[in-house]
């Protein structure tokens, strides 16, 4: 198996995520925190992020239906989600959170719904790409090599 090729693919995938604005500088800061004491830190944070954001998105979807025009409630969910997105560097998702909150401020239901749909799409894309990225890293080499962040 060509480990260096797999590692190149992983690096290229990650570069794409930065170039297309899915990830920002904060993700690099999270990578910096990975070390020998926490060799899987980045993947752990990403797993926690998708679990948490998935839950928030589901709750918000229910709230959009159950509590129409309850902008304060909707904004509260989105504020939480924005916090998680910014902590991990999920830049496009964070931007949609901000659009949604702006629409809440303007009491614009259509704006909120539009932003929410975009947010769900960005969430799905980022999840799929990061899952592929970590899979490539795992395949890329023996345990030690797979846990080093690929630049």
């Amino acid at each position, binding site marked *: 198996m060509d480990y260096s090729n797999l590692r190149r693919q992983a690096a290229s995938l990650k570069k794409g995520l930065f170039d297309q604005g899915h990830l920002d500088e*904060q993700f690099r800061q999270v990578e*910096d925190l990975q070390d020998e004491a926490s060799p899987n830190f980045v993947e752990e*944070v990403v797993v926690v*992020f998708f679990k*948490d954001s998935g839950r928030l998105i589901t709750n918000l979807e229910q709230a959009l239906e159950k509590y129409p025009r309850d902008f304060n409630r909707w904004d509260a969910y989105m504020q939480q989600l924005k*916090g*998680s997105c910014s902590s991990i560097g999920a830049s496009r998702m964070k931007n949609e959170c901000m659009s949604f909150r702006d629409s809440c401020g303007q009491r614009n239901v259509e704006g909120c719904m539009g932003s929410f749909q975009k947010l769900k799409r960005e969430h799905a894309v980022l999840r799929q790409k990061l899952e592929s990225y970590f899979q490539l890293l795992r395949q890329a080499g023996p345990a030690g090599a797979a846990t080093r962040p690929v630049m």
Partner: protein
Amino acid sequence: MGMMEENQRERMEDATVDQFPEGLRVLAVDDDCVCLKVLEALLRRCIYHPTMAMDAKTALKMLRTMKVKFDLVITDVRMPDMDGFKIRELIGLEMDMPVIMLSVDCYKKVVLNGINHGACDYLVKPVYTNDIKNIWQHVESRRRSQAISHMSRDNANDERVHPGSLAMSKDSKNKRNDEYDSNKNTESTHSSTTQKIQGWHGQLSFKTSF
């Protein structure tokens, strides 16, 4: 009385400084588990000793019952069971400890609210390594202003002593926090207010330029 206590106090302060800033005991409170995980790693990277809590009740229980005394609290402004400003008030009433507010928002109104509630700094998410590296300064600043206040009251020959405090220095040391508030030592109050203003102002200007 006098020289012996002075030397002992200096030795204790030197010992404290030697351990700074490594080993700072920080309690971090946030219901956002992603942020909490990243924050914990940042605190460990600075060789601080973090303890994490996901809600206000747990945090307050830890502060009240844990044998280890914390040096500083970082708390999100918004949590399901209690807001961060209320936590800051309770900490201020029950124990003397610097509290840093943490939030997604950087609206001036919210920041000022934090400062008015006595927060010593205000961090906007995402938190950066440099934000965390500098938090020990809030603890150090507080310890120094308290040390100055104690030395002023205890030393009858010190010219900095406010005339009113001389009478109070006879009281037991247990009442010193109450005395500190009622004395309103202008030097300490001014420096801590300045610290607060510099704290959030510096933070905001950093975020704006970024």
